[in-house]
């Protein structure tokens, strides 16, 4: 059973299109994230949700809209795709901020979605 699963694995689309990436975790975690790995290979946080509430919203264009229907799911919708959106997008989850030495930083990542905008 995959702990954090995201679909699709590959996404090739034209500029201007709208697309969504779905993420689900079966670990019972309360916090979920979207990270973007750019062409320079840096992983940068985009959003974080805790129990369906947005808690981190980095400087990301408004074209990116996360949606969390429940604490096990965090989807990412992207409007009007641009060439610069091409990257690998990783979903992740972590335990809630209770007990232990910073458990919420031990992230569990999905396998990534390679987005290519042509």
């Amino acid at each position, binding site marked *: 059973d995959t702990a954090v699963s995201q679909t699709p694995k590959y996404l090739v689309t034209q500029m201007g299109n709208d697309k969504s990436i779905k993420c689900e975790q079966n670990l019972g975690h309360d*916090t979920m994230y979207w990270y973007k790995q750019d062409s320079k*290979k840096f*992983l*940068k946080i985009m959003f974080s949700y805790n129990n369906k509430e947005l808690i*981190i919203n980095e400087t990301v264009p408004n074209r990116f809209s996360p949606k969390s229907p429940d604490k096990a799911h965090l989807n990412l919708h992207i409007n009007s795709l641009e060439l610069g959106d091409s990257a690998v997008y990783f979903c*992740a989850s*972590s335990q809630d901020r209770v007990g232990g030495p910073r458990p919420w930083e*031990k*992230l*569990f990542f999905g396998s990534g979605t390679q987005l290519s905008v042509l």
Partner: protein
Amino acid sequence: DQQVKQNSPSLSVQEGRISILNCDYTNSMFDYFLWYKKYPAEGPTFLISISSIKDKNEDGRFTVFLNKSAKHLSLHIVPSQPGDSAVYFCAASAADSWGKLQFGAGTQVVVTP
């Protein structure tokens, strides 16, 4: 502005020898550091972490050392095995950052027989 830097993009080491991966950071508010390992076509997986109140943490073949005054940490893998061939990411966070990790660009480790 990259606050976590891994200046060696790649490292080649013979099986059985020690691998040493380095990581530097600039933000003095960082107080928790982690290493993640990533295989191709997979997401990063947690490897080992260290709090700023310690200067060393060991887990089997993996040891992380922290030098706060130099804002430097390193990961030692002893002995290196072929299955250790992967990209290793250094990450750091500050208190109350709600899981907002700052990652380095990664170091590709290749362990040769």
